């Protein structure tokens, strides 16, 4: 139960943070201007708010993240780990190696 509470707090942090991050990204790469340009390129109509492009775009972001983290099956091999699992494994391995190194250094100093 405590774990669930912690997970909810971390999730809230991540949600607010990723909302800010994606807005920063969009401003940084001037995404709105590119979308207006693409809209003009396809339809020939000039508009400052191409919602017809922007709403599917936002939904697409969700699908992209899901696909990357292996939540949607696309008919590939199922036994392969997702990038997150690989990263978790690498992180755990590094932590263990670091702890071992620290322990051996301490032993060397005392002995």
């Amino acid at each position: 139960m405590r774990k669930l509470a912690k997970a909810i707090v971390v999730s809230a942090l991540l949600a607010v943070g990723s909302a800010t991050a994606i807005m920063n990204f969009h401003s940084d790469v001037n995404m709105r201007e590119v979308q207006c340009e693409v809209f003009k390129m396809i339809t020939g109509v000039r508009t400052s708010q191409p919602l017809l492009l922007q709403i599917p775009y936002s939904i697409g972001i969700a699908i992209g993240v899901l696909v990357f983290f292996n939540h949607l099956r696309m008919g590939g091999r199922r036994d392969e780990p997702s990038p997150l699992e690989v990263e978790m494994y690498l992180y755990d391995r590094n932590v263990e190696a670091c702890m071992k190194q620290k322990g051996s250094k301490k032993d060397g100093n005392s002995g």
Partner: protein
Amino acid sequence: MGIQASRLSVVVLGFAWGLVTGGAMASFLSILEIIPRLAQLTDTRHFMRLYELVIGVTMGSASLAFDTNLQWRLPTWFVPPIGLFMGMYVGLLASALAEVLNVLPVLCRRFDIDEYVWMLIIALILGKVTGSMALWSLPNIP
């Protein structure tokens, strides 16, 4: 003769510029590992050459289309599918960034919530979608 020489030098300059930009884009894409990820998910690793070709040709023609102010005047229903694919690509890009992949294991380890990773990912997605929707709903400030 002078004008022709200067034109030729502009052509050479533009070509060199494009070569550098294309190389930079290719190395950026290979750092992010989006394409290997998609190939792994769909089990189509042997089509890697096709993916490379598609990316190269599309980048070249898209930049040409932007520079020449091309307009197709297609019906409006062409727009949403393209928007969806644009968003999917950005979603892949945003999750492939090393920061996200490095932060999640640390958070899971620190707070000991390994079994709730799915919740963290859902939270990430909700945040990204609301954030971008909110940005689009704001008026365009030049």
